[in-house]
């Protein structure tokens, strides 16, 4: 069922957003097309089992959540000199042609109702361009959300044999906004031949915010796209990380960490499509749930008919700290080529009793011991992070949540 178009949304709204940014005609057209598509598009797919729907997106009241003309954010961008990191709008002046060519090429803007809504209304985001043979480390983008709703679009293009590590942090700013909010974040990565991208994302919005995020990568020949996704904030998070392995010998890792408490709802998904030969994927998600928090996880490893010699692995582990929490998981394998080595594993459980007993017997107080074990549980994710600041932030947030 498609959602109702909010009454405060019209072609005028979209023109106003586009005019205010002095955007080229093609972008206005793209926005208007997305707006028009809203009539027929559906909300993102949600897993259903007999009698249960794992996430209820229909319940979101877009009428009150979406305030398109009052979007406001405070974003800082730090980057080494040889890589281009610009606010999306500013980048249009100098890189307009490139952006026109790649915008929406990796992530179909009409994937669902929420992506189209985002494309029609986005006012912030970043353009990252890494020229051939450039190796750039520690691109840091920190965004503060200061309005009822905020729509962001980020495009990363890496040329042949380049590499880049990126941190994107999202928090709520100090602005005084009463009631519920909505944050939408679309990210597309077009990884050129033999390039390397690590895109780390840390979402820690306040718990009045509903977050929708879709990040999608297109991995070219010999390239690698590694995603790291940390979700601690928001009342409800729907996050999809997807890589299409389109080039021979391309690789991807999708590494996720989440830590839910209170009545947070985390719907996190990792999907990979093997479409070329000799590709490799590794999906690792670790999550902790406390209080009434609920997690929903779907992992998909799709091996296409032509994906000869594929390696594909997936692990998902959830720790439950409270009886009131709920963890739902569905790791899926879809294998159409027999020349494949694929596996997945998922576990749900508590902190290991024997580990706890051992530490208590070493005179560590039980709560400290439990917290140490939870922190340790996240190590496989932390180890993957290449931007030091990101790792430190995530460690701090985990520690703070345990206090």
């Amino acid at each position, binding site marked *: 069922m498609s959602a109702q178009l909010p009454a405060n949304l019209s072609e005028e709204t979209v023109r106003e957003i586009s005019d205010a940014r002095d955007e080229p005609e093609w972008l206005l057209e793209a926005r208007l097309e997305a707006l028009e598509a809203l009539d027929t598009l559906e909300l993102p797919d949600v897993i259903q*089992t007999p009698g249960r729907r794992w996430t209820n997106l229909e319940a979101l009241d877009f009428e009150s959540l979406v305030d398109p003309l009052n979007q406001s954010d405070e974003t800082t961008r730090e980057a080494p000199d040889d890589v281009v990191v610009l606010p999306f709008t500013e980048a249009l002046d100098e890189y307009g042609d490139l952006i026109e060519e790649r915008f929406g090429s990796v992530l179909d803007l009409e994937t669902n109702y929420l992506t189209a809504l985002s494309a029609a209304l986005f006012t912030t985001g970043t353009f990252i361009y890494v020229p051939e043979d450039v190796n750039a480390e520690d691109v840091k983008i920190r965004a503060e959300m200061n309005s009822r709703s905020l729509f962001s679009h980020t495009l990363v293009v890496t040329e042949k044999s380049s590499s880049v590590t990126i941190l994107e942090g999202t928090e709520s700013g100090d602005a005084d906004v009463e009631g519920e909010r909505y944050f939408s974040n679309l990210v597309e990565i077009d990884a050129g031949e033999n390039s390397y991208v690590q895109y780390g994302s840390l979402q820690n919005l306040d718990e009045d915010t509903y977050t929708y995020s879709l990040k999608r990568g297109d991995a070219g020949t010999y390239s690698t796209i590694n995603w790291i996704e940390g979700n601690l904030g928001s009342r409800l998070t729907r996050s999809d990380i997807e890589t299409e392995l389109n080039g021979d010998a391309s690789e991807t890792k999708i590494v996720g960490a989440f830590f839910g408490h209170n009545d947070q709802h985390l719907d996190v998904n990792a999907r990979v499509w093997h479409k070329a030969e000799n590709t490799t994927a590794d999906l690792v998600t670790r999550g902790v749930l406390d209080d009434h928090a609920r997690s929903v996880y779907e992992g998909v490893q799709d091996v296409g008919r032509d994906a000869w010699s594929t390696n594909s692995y997936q692990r998902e582990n*959830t720790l439950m*700290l409270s*009886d009131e929490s*709920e963890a739902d998981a569905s790791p899926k394998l879809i*294998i159409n080529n027999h020349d494949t080595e694929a596996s997945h*594993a998922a576990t749900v459980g508590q902190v290991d009793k024997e580990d706890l007993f051992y530490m208590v017997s070493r005179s560590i107080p039980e709560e400290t011991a439990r917290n140490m074990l939870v922190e340790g549980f996240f190590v496989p994710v932390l180890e993957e992070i290449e931007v030091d600041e990101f790792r430190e932030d995530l460690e701090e947030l985990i520690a703070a949540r345990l206090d």
Partner: protein
Amino acid sequence: MSSDQDHLKETDTEARFEFKKEQKAAFAAEKGLNEETIRVISEDKDEPEWMLERRLRALKQYQKMPMPTDWPGQPDLSEVDVDEIVPYIRPDVEVRGGVDDWRDLPDDIKDTFDKLGIPEAEKNALSGVGAQYESEVVYQNMQERWEEKGVVFMNMDQAVQEHEDIVKEYFMTKCVPPSDNKFAALHGAIWSGGSFVYVPEDTTVDMPVQAYFRMNSEGMGQFEHTLIVAEKGSEVHYIEGCSAPKYSAFNLHSGGVEVFVGEDAHVQYSTVQNWSKNTYNLNTKRAIVEKNGRMEWISGSMGSKATMLYPASILKGRGASDNHITIAFAGEGQNIDTGAKVYHNAPDTKSTIESKSISKDGGRTNYRGLVHIANGATNSSTAVECDALMFDNESTSDTMPYMEINESTVDVAHEATVGKIGDEDIFYLQSRGLDDDDAKQMIVSGFIEPITEELPIEYAVELNRLVELEMEGSLG
């Protein structure tokens, strides 16, 4: 090798399944489905009024419910047009409810089951045998020593007459209500035949009871219902085998199985399904397990064009446990979508699910499973393991498990692997003097061994023979 096994080996398994008999029926319903058909079936069976009412209610539900089409990757059911099938055929047997002496069967039916090896199996290893031909059970027999202990094994239609109270209480009420899914509703409307098994308290039936289902007519549907009630502390192993010859029109099998496992009771339900490759096999099988009871589902799905089957256990009492072992083999044109469902609704409940699938020559297998741990089901544990073997690049193998965990003091593990048959394994066996075909067969036999070792020897041998035949088909 014992002489029993020799006998089964000697019977050419392929011939046993591929032959067809000319259709000779005493009564056949019109094609299609309406209230009139249902009344005719019910009347032909001389059923009590409440059963007719249940059938008619189920029919209404069936008509209301949409065809399932939105499951990710599900088999295509667009060809299944219930109005095109003959829902009810009563074969030409004098005595309603079948005969209890093999010699009294009409020659053509006797010949069918002889070829399938039924009487031989009965002599050797079973407590009781039922055989269903088209819509009606034609033969039912149970060894006297079990009858003396109060064990009941009879055909379902007869049970409606003779054990009306039990049937009325348990038949499609609390276990599989017709509203469960479209095909359960269809089943509730036009069910016919099947088995009723009742095992009194503290009684152990130490040899399996078996039912064999056979569809012989083109374009028919078989809708047998199996109801097993195992009282406190009892134990029984029920085996069903299924087959049909291949016709060009499609056949539909939509069975319903309800199992009530009492406190401390133990029920094993084994199926070897070899429906012909024009059959749509859409079943609903479910067990409710009381305190410390144990349910085991063993399924081998080799036949059918499309199968959708997810035997379910509802672990209702503290300490109840479930064990699923399933194997699916999909060859050319087959789509075997099967798995397991377990609801942990009480503390200290346990489940293990082991699934093996093989796909080749464009066949498609899918493991689809659900494990639900409800709030309050503390100290429960579940372990799911799925392994898939793919023979070639035309085939597809999917794994789609769902886990819903509402309790923290639990142990939940799911693992799955998919791969091709190992070149090194084949090389090793070849170096020991086996040719390529034999090596592959041996690897597959080893792959499905966890299933075959759970079955009585006759079934294990048959399953192995079926796998060999499937393999020969592709490699020849």
